[in-house]
């Protein structure tokens, strides 16, 4: 199993994402100007400030050559995980529903939060059980998840809300405490918290590793024996 981690100008969490992936499988960096995903089985769109967050966070990155390839990969069912800025990019690209708005408190937030697994039957959460709590850090200014009410109802009914902030820990005013969502097919997901920064007990928590572990077992199960 091989992960491809994208590096945009302005990415800053791609190396942590790469190292997190390598704890569970092979991984290599993919350059934003390349169209070639180099045979990756799963793609991680990492955090940072791609293209300086110009216009709106994630708005420019979606037009990069690599994102065309990611779009095709996603439409053919390949798993794609967007973290923080990567989540914003996937929303802007229309691969995920909704949008991310400036935090309700207008401040940059950087803290450890508990996430509750809402749907454990996805490629991203298969190694978890529903209701599991994962301790993972958030660090962002534009992380308030928004979608119109009727779309939110649809997402909930369809199991597309995969992770929620634990009660009382919503750091940014996200609608219905939503921390992570998936597309309808459940092969594309995004979350504002950073699982790649929570893969070693030495830095406080290894819970984030469960998402990478889930992806590896998902892809492994698909591969021909």
């Amino acid at each position, binding site marked *: 199993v091989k992960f491809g981690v994208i590096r945009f100008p302005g990415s800053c969490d791609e190396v942590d994402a790469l190292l997190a992936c390598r704890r569970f499988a092979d991984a290599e960096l993919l350059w934003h100007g390349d169209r070639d995903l180099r045979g990756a089985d799963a793609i991680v769109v990492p955090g940072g400030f791609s293209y300086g967050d110009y*216009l709106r966070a994630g*708005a420019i990155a979606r037009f990069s050559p690599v994102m065309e390839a990611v779009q095709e990969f996603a439409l053919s069912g390949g798993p794609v995980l967007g973290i923080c800025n990567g989540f914003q990019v996937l929303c802007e690209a229309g691969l995920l529903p*909704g949008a991310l708005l400036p935090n309700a408190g207008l401040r940059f937030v950087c803290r450890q939060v508990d996430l509750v697994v809402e749907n454990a039957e996805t490629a991203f959460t298969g190694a978890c059980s529903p209701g599991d709590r994962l301790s993972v850090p958030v660090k962002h200014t534009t992380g308030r998840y928004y979608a119109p009410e009727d779309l939110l109802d649809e997402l909930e009914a369809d199991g597309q809300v995969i992770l929620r902030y634990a009660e009382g820990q919503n750091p940014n005013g996200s609608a219905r405490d939503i921390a992570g969502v998936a597309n309808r097919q459940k092969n594309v997901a995004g979350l504002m918290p950073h699982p790649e920064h929570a893969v070693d007990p030495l830095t406080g928590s290894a819970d984030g590793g469960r998402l990478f572990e889930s992806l590896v077992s998902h892809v492994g199960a698909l591969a021909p024996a």
Partner: protein
Amino acid sequence: LKARVLIRPKAGILDPQGQTVERALPALGFDGVHDVRVGRMVELEAPDESRIGEMCEKLLANPLIEDYEILVVER
């Protein structure tokens, strides 16, 4: 032609920047101001105005969260 595109958060979407400005005004003696919304403005020159709406839909604004308004300022 020269145009200005005004982009603002859609009605009903919480705009904490607007709220902060609204709360700051009375401190300076500007009373009675409400519904402050903070957006952004894009100024551009284009061959004509026919495709500016499309530019807004695809890039300049995110139609899920923002409204836009196109003003032609110079022909």
